[in-house]
């Protein structure tokens, strides 16, 4: 066994510490951990991907409806509002949250170096979670939406979600408590935080908005405290934990700085949760609340720059590896997008910028830069690494991997860049009372059509990925064949050969 110095321990994921690919005992332990995660994590990934496909179709319908309002207009359950809301809820609660939980469980077990404690229970809870999402999205489509952004699922669906989530979270925390590896890697801080923060956010929002609704605009402040924190304290930590794990793991190099990772984590924990009211700049709330959120949003520069230095400096000099590892490619795309999304977020929180961009498509573009270009890309990257390990099969098609990457990378760029610009112009026009409102509407039309095109590219990418995953699953039932080209099952040092186009 290679002895690791104390400093290096803090900078590398726990499952990379001793021996690496050369130690047979270590490999066996990792393979036992992967086996314990197989059923629940596969279940999370597959149901998450099913919701991704549903969410993609809903997104396309919503996008078309916005420039062609007569499209499917006679069906009440398919109004723009219903489809748009069903899209948000399928991709947030159906897709992103389930992939997050799958990735969290696997990372937690790997970093704690123990097999998952209750895989059966987690799988059952996940089944109920999917029932909850189905009931919730169905409720939205039949007009039972609460019209509270990010919390639209009706009251009869949310308790199923909350209880199933709680069961999954409890067993994740138990796994953490029983960890064999006592050293805590930076990814574990973020994962533990996300798992604990989410139920607090969701529980508070449930009680104060759905069960015993508070009065007046306090609803708006609770709404945005919740909705913004779902991004910042649920998805962001899991995304960052993944980047902190996979970049060092794939390139075989420790993270740039331990101190920056500590600073980045605690400054995110301190400042992010105060950000939500920047969604209400100019709104009917006391100025102190909005000002506090703007200040906290600017303070986000600290964690964002810290994490950016840590991620990008770790990558420095290793960009050549992007050619070979799909995981790395998606991760680095996500890490760069995180920096951009955060800087855009800080800027839009300022009163002078918000005056223009608030109420426009700029905010929609920003949401997709964060949720898709950052978070979803990171999750794709994580799945490219995890799926071959839990199924013990190689990815069947390099071509499909490339199609996936280029489809979604170009698609999201074609979505975010034009929509950000369009939103800014739209806001400038709205703020000029001499411009007729309907002229502003007409101005947005060609841009909205461009968005539908971007959506088609994203859909093509998703299709390619799902076909590849399906193919991989088919291979699970075939006898194991030693892959001709080892691009994925090997640890960092064996990454070689087949170059992705």
């Amino acid at each position, binding site marked *: 066994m290679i002895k690791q110095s104390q400093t290096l321990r803090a900078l590398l994921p726990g499952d990379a510490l001793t021996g690496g690919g050369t130690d047979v005992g270590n490999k066996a332990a990792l393979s036992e951990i992967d086996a314990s995660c197989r059923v629940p994590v596969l279940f999370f990934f597959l149901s998450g991907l099913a919701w991704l496909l549903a969410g993609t179709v809903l997104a396309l319908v919503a996008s078309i409806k916005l*420039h062609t309002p007569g499209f499917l207009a006679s069906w009440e359950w398919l109004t*723009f509002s219903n489809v748009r809301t069903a899209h948000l809820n399928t991709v947030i609660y159906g897709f992103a949250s389930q992939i997050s939980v799958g990735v969290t469980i696997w990372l937690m077990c790997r970093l704690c170096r123990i097999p998952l404690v209750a895989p059966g229970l987690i799988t059952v809870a996940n089944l109920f979670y999917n029932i909850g999402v189905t009931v919730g999205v169905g409720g939205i489509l039949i007009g039972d939406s609460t019209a509270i952004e990010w919390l639209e699922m009706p009251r009869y669906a949310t308790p199923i979600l909350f209880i199933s989530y709680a069961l999954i979270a409890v067993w994740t925390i138990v796994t953490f408590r029983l960890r064999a590896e006592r050293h805590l890697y930076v990814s574990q801080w973020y994962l533990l935080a996300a798992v604990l*923060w989410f139920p607090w956010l969701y529980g508070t929002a449930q009680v104060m908005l759905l069960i015993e609704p508070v009065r007046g*605009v*306090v609803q708006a402040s609770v709404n945005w405290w919740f909705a913004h924190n779902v991004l910042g304290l649920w998805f962001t930590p899991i995304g960052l934990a993944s980047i902190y794990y996979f970049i060092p793991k794939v390139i075989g190099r420790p993270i740039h700085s331990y101190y920056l990772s500590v600073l980045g984590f605690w400054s995110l924990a301190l400042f992010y949760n105060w950000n939500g009211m920047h969604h209400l700049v100019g709104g009917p709330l006391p100025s102190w609340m909005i000002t506090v959120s703007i200040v906290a949003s600017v303070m986000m520069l600290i964690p964002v720059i810290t994490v950016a230095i840590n991620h990008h400096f770790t990558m420095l000099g290793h960009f050549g590896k992007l050619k070979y590892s799909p995981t790395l490619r998606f991760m680095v795309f996500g890490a760069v997008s995180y920096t951009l999304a955060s800087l855009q977020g800080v800027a839009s929180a300022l009163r002078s910028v918000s005056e223009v961009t608030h*109420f426009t498509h700029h905010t929609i573009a920003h949401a997709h830069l964060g949720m898709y270009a950052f978070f979803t890309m990171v999750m794709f990257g994580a799945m490219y690494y995890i799926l071959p390990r839990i199924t013990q099969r190689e990815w069947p098609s390099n071509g499909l991997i490339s199609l996936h990457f280029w489809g979604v990378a170009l698609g999201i760029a074609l979505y975010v860049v034009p929509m950000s610009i369009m939103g800014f112009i739209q806001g400038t026009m709205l703020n000029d009372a001499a411009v007729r409102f*309907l002229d502003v509407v007409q101005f947005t039309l060609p841009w909205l059509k461009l968005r539908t095109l971007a959506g088609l590219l994203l859909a093509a990418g998703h299709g390619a990925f799902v076909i590849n995953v399906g193919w991989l699953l088919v291979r699970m039932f075939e006898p194991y064949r030693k892959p001709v080209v080892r691009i994925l099952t090997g640890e960092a040092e064996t990454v070689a050969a087949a170059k992705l186009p």
Partner: protein
Amino acid sequence: MSYGPLLFLGILFTLATSWVGLVLLPHRQMGALGQHTDTNTAAVYPAARAGEAQQGAEHYRSLGCVYCHTQQVRPEGYGSDIERGWGRRRTVSRDYIQDKTVMLGTMRTGPDLTNIGERQADAAWHYRHLYNPQITSPGSIMPPHGFLFDIRAIGQAGRSTNALVLEGTFAPPAGQEVIPTRRAEQLVAYLRSLKSSGDLPEAPVKKEEAK
């Protein structure tokens, strides 16, 4: 940083700060905000909505109007809300205390509706607009809400009094008429009840404009 309990406490403490600051404190500050009684006229603002309009608010929620229409007027000099005639003054917390679900909105695909009841009091306009926005606002991207109307044969007694007056391509086939459903009536009652321009100490209406 490998000490679990410290990490655990830190995670809980950080979120607790904003939970107190942005959830509990605002609830304490504004959760019990009441109506304002004008000392001169004894008028109470904001008044409770009539039952019909309250039902309409539920349809507004259910149809998801909030995803394209805001209900908030930003202060004078910040954006052009007041110049566009969307309100005579900014909206403040007290304007919303009668709303079961507060639907401030975050997107202006369509115009703000805070004072739509004042800006467009004509119910017939609202019916035609909901039936097909192209009738009243050509070029709009608002979806037609035909499902809020019944198209039926004109009865023996002749055209119903509440039938929509539709011309040209929008008119129903000969011998038929377009009648608002109960839902459409309630929704329009709600839209016409949307007025947030009462004179408040915290948001006075400019005297030369307030009549």
